[in-house]
């Protein structure tokens, strides 16, 4: 913290405002087209649901060139009478500052949290600046559990298209659920509510200059809350519709930052997750309803081509990270014998092995961590292609059941991770010992006992 103090303009603004009950943060970078709607929804939500509280909206900007900050400071809530505002209504302050340090979402969050702490806020919430589906009720759902019900962390719960959120569905949710034993459905949702207590905990940590400064921030926040025993709940926010991400962004880098954060935290919280088995549901607030969702077109052939190319080109790198049996199964899948695209399946067990092997390799460091994580991209694309092919004719409930099956597989095979984690070298089977089938190995592995 001391190495990264609050910038002087922000400190000055905090001194002028003196104190606030609620701080609502909006990180941004070139979001002039969408941010005004988010600010208006936030202001309306604070006015409608928390009129008696002193609130501040903080925009933490990454140096936008398109007038994002001006849009934040100049937008107005039209037709205020339609919002049925209570009176007396305390004004909602609006601040906008550029953040400093590593460019990324995490650095933006850090500035928001620092301002919230300087204002001694009782509750803080953050929402993305590219949201199209946000409405004033979101603010109530994200803030009220911390302000009135004693929760420390409010995770979002959205309806998303079946092809949306694939990093969440295929890696982050099943892995964090199996590890920490709580079913937080959207651990990297991007919209959160945080209590003052948890906020202080975030700010006292020293790992802000890692992947946490970028896309790793969401999973970092969720994991700390869950692993350190803070009170966690979820709020149903309806649909998540947001503006298309920057097409210049790099999928590999994004995946690398999120998964890298998960794996790094795995080491820190080993004493927590080693002993946990199964998973428990998390309190869910809000009225659940079905919503229409934007369709997401996907190109399965291209994903499969990337996976098969990976099987040919990245064998050398994977051989350092994956167990021989896992590698053999992956190679079989990418080989010429399985060229029928529609029949392609990367089964749950194999995917779970891959993720567990990579997590152990991340700890063991048989090769540089950045390389290890970047080499995950084709495997991830293979899994996504398999998932898309499997659920293309399914409805939302069936898709959710399918994801639940994957989560149960992660939970079932967790003893393997525990065993492999500590005795990584000892448990490494000989190269010649290739199993006859994947299922045969699952049977063997699940008989391992959890180490105390």
């Amino acid at each position, binding site marked *: 913290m001391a190495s990264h103090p609050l910038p002087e303009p922000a400190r000055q603004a905090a001194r002028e405002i003196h104190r606030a009950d609620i701080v609502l943060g909006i990180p941004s970078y070139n979001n002039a087209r969408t941010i005004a709607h988010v600010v208006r929804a936030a202001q309306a939500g604070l006015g409608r649901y928390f009129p008696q509280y002193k609130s501040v909206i903080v925009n933490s900007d990454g140096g936008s060139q398109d007038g994002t900050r001006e849009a934040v400071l100049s937008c107005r809530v039209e037709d205020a009478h339609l919002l049925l505002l209570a009176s007396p209504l305390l004004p909602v302050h609006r601040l906008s500052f550029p953040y400093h340090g590593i460019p990324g979402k995490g650095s933006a969050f850090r500035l928001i949290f620092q301002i919230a702490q300087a204002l001694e806020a009782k509750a803080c919430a953050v929402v993305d600046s590219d949201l199209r589906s946000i409405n004033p009720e979101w603010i109530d759902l994200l803030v009220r559990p911390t302000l009135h019900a004693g929760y420390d962390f409010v995770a979002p719960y959205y309806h998303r298209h079946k*092809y*949306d*959120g*694939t*990093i*969440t569905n295929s890696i982050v949710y099943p892995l964090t659920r199996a590890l920490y034993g709580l079913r937080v459905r959207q651990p*990297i949702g*991007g919209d959160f509510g945080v209590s003052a207590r948890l906020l202080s905990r975030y700010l006292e940590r020293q790992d802000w200059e890692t992947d946490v400064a970028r*896309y790793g921030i969401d999973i970092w926040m969720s994991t700390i809350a869950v692993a350190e025993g803070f009170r966690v709940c979820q709020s149903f926010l309806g649909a998540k519709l947001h503006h*298309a*991400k*920057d*097409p210049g*962004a*790099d*999928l*590999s880098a*994004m995946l690398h930052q*999120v998964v890298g954060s998960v794996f790094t935290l795995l080491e820190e919280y080993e004493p927590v997750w080693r002993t946990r088995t199964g998973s428990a549901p998390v309190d869910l607030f809000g009225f659940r309803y079905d919503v229409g969702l934007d369709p*997401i*077109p*996907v*190109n399965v052939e*291209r*994903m499969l081509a990337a996976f098969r*190319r*990976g099987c*040919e*080109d*990245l064998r*050398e*790198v994977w051989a*350092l990270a994956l167990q021989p049996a896992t590698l053999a199964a992956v190679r079989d899948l990418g080989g010429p014998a399985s060229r029928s695209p529609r029949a392609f399946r990367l089964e749950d067990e194999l995917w779970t092995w891959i993720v567990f092997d990579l997590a152990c390799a991340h700890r*063991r*460091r*048989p*090769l*540089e*961590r950045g*390389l290890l994580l*970047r*080499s995950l*991209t*084709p495997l991830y694309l293979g899994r*996504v292609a398999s998932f898309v092919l499997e659920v293309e004719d399914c409805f939302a409930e069936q898709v959710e059941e399918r994801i639940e099956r994957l989560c149960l597989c992660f939970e079932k095979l967790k003893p393997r991770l525990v065993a492999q984690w500590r005795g990584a*070298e000892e448990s490494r089977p000989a190269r010649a010992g290739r199993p006859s089938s994947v299922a045969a190995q699952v049977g063997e592995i699940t008989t391992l006992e959890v180490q105390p």
Partner: protein
Amino acid sequence: MIEALEKVLQEALARLSSLVMTYLPGALAALVIMLAALLLALLARWMLGRIFKGIGVDRFLRQSGIASVLTRSGQPRTSRVIAAAAYWAILVAGALTALSVFDTQLTTRMTDALVRVFPKLILAAVILVCGLWLAQLLGRSVLVWAFNENLPWPRRLSLAVRVIITLAAVATAADQLDFGRQVFLAAFILLVGGAALAGGLAVGLGSRDAVRRYLETKAPEDQPREERSLWDHL
């Protein structure tokens, strides 16, 4: 006749005994030195093996990622390698000391040459190891980068990087040893020059179609939505 034969034999025996008397103490001393060196080498190998294992050098190399670029398997055997290096270094030093006992022109020249070349050998070995390390590291980085950037032939690119860096290391090491300096240098220049020419031609010829396609197609904003779908996944 017999007297003459006896005289010759006596003279031969005298010369032999003189030779034995001259060289035997030296040979015995050399033998003792060699035995001592062997014992010392065995002791050093055993102790170094234990010490490096004890302080976890292999673990450090593995965890710092250095092992993965030094070995293909990522499972280093540094303790064993260092212990073996110490063993052979002591044996060679013992042999040199043993040879110097005889104090002949030949042994002195051999000892001098080895002592002069030893630092160069060490330096050349360090250059070679660093070169191999760099070749592995950059080779793997190029492999993964080229793959994720969707470049053609990532493995060949990676191999090319490895070969060029390894050859550069070999040329530098050979230069240190004054061994085939011109040959290695010429080979290196030819290889890098050839690679640059081939790369230039490939990019030049290959990009003709790419540039034409780019000009024929519209701006990136007009790309179909599915092109973006991969990014829109968090």
